[in-house]
């Protein structure tokens, strides 16, 4: 076993590597980064398309078994990525019911897995956000005699800034997970390798500084996406009050 100082040197080495990787515009790294963003952003978009309306609907609707539905929805936020990966694998495998599509070991399979993983997060969090908002506006909505669809639309629009944070929570979960994309993507070089599976690979090669360097790049990436959304939101708010 090594001295503690050597491990610290690894971290310094990783920082140096991360900087030089980014500055050199390493083609393999660019490819992996682009695929990571493509997969996780697409999954986030699809998860929002499903989760936001669903969350809004559950927020305003009153139906028998609603309490149970809420508990289930919240519990699904904790779906283990590796289990989602297995379920999607079993569906998309050539031996599975959707095997004829030939989607296993493609970016599409990874998008499917991440969408299943984060759609419940988007739905459950947006339900909470929109229900609070709905309680605030309930009397007003009633006085305007809005239909349920109009209420849902108004809530989604009024809550849009909070919902951006919801979407970011989903994106964060998607871009950081490795269990699902490893199984359904296969970590194939130049085809399905993303940041997290590349980090797992470098770790298993014992190339710890390189693994950590990729981790630093991934965190910088997440920071960049969050900053972009923050900037978007800030400028939208400014325009709203001009």
């Amino acid at each position: 076993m090594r001295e503690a100082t050597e491990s610290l040197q690894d971290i310094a080495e990783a920082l140096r590597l991360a900087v030089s990787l980014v500055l050199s515009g390493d083609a393999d790294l660019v490819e992996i980064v682009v695929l990571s963003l493509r997969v996780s952003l697409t999954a986030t978009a699809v998860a929002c398309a499903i989760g936001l309306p669903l969350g809004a609907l559950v927020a305003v609707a009153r139906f028998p078994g609603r309490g149970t539905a809420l508990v289930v929805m919240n519990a699904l936020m904790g779906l283990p990525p590796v289990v989602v990966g297995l379920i999607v694998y079993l569906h998309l495998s050539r031996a599975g019911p959707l095997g004829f599509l030939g989607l296993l070991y493609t970016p599409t399979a990874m998008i499917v897995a991440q969408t299943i993983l984060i759609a419940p997060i988007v739905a459950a969090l947006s339900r909470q956000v929109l229900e609070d908002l709905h309680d605030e506006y309930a009397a007003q909505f009633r006085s305007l005699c809005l239909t349920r669809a109009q209420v849902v639309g108004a809530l989604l629009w009024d809550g849009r800034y909070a919902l951006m944070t919801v979407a970011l929570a989903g994106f964060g979960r998607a871009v950081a997970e490795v269990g699902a994309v490893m199984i359904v993507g296969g970590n194939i070089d130049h085809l399905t390798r993303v940041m997290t599976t590349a980090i797992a690979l470098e770790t298993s090669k014992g190339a710890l500084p390189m693994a950590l360097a990729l981790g630093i790049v991934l965190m910088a990436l997440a920071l960049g996406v969050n900053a972009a959304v923050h900037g978007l939101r800030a400028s939208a708010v400014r325009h709203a009050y001009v």
Partner: protein
Amino acid sequence: MAFSRIALVSTLALAAGAAVAQSDSILVQSTTSTANSGLYDYLLPAFESESGITVNVVAVGTGQAIENARNCDGDVLLVHAKPAEEAFVADGYGTARTDLMYNDFVIVGPQGDPAGIAGTEDAQAALSAIAEAEAPFASRGDDSGTHKKELSLWSGTEVDPASGSGAWYRETGSGMGATLNAGIGMGAYVMTDRATWISFENKQDYEIAVEGDEDLFNQYGVIPVSPEACPSVNAEGAQAFADWLVSEAGQDAIAAYEVDGQQLFFPNAPREGTDG
């Protein structure tokens, strides 16, 4: 799971257009040792430029690779567990199995050598000594080729390692590299294939303790997945790849691959026209 179904179906509908539909590509289900050691990065460009076929590699443990191939999720199987490979062919999933190359397993350990096995050639005696000393031993524990080999070695000793499970016998349930990381982190002996060991970058103070036993022989085989069992496979591409690997060009390429001046794999495909 109705909700997941909806998510699945709508995503498929959305993303179907983006599906990768490469007809002239094959998928190889393979082991972590061949992929992590960089062999494919060295071999594949030569085959790809010659044949125009893109080769994609999924690197998992041998047990999982065989299972994936049984599900028809691969065109070629390249692993190292001869009995399991022969069963795969006998069950009709593979067209034929060919010896491809070999190297050997070694047992690595910390410089302190708590079980006093450094320099031993007898692998089973070394394992017995480790169990006797109750020195930590990190096992793959994942049904991989290396794990199967390790269990077969234990079965020739008086020791049942399962009795020490969780104590001195530690099953990581992970790939070769992850098991090396874990084993080195806790000062445990690890049995690894030599290729992974030579190319492993986090060796710290570890050295090879046991090597040279005939029992540590590590044979790799290649099997094209049968189009009869799996109509979806790219049978032509798979056969072309398998043929190339055992051809003189492929065997020479395998022999030429070195890390740190050391050859990692030794080609031993049967030569055509000879008895060997």
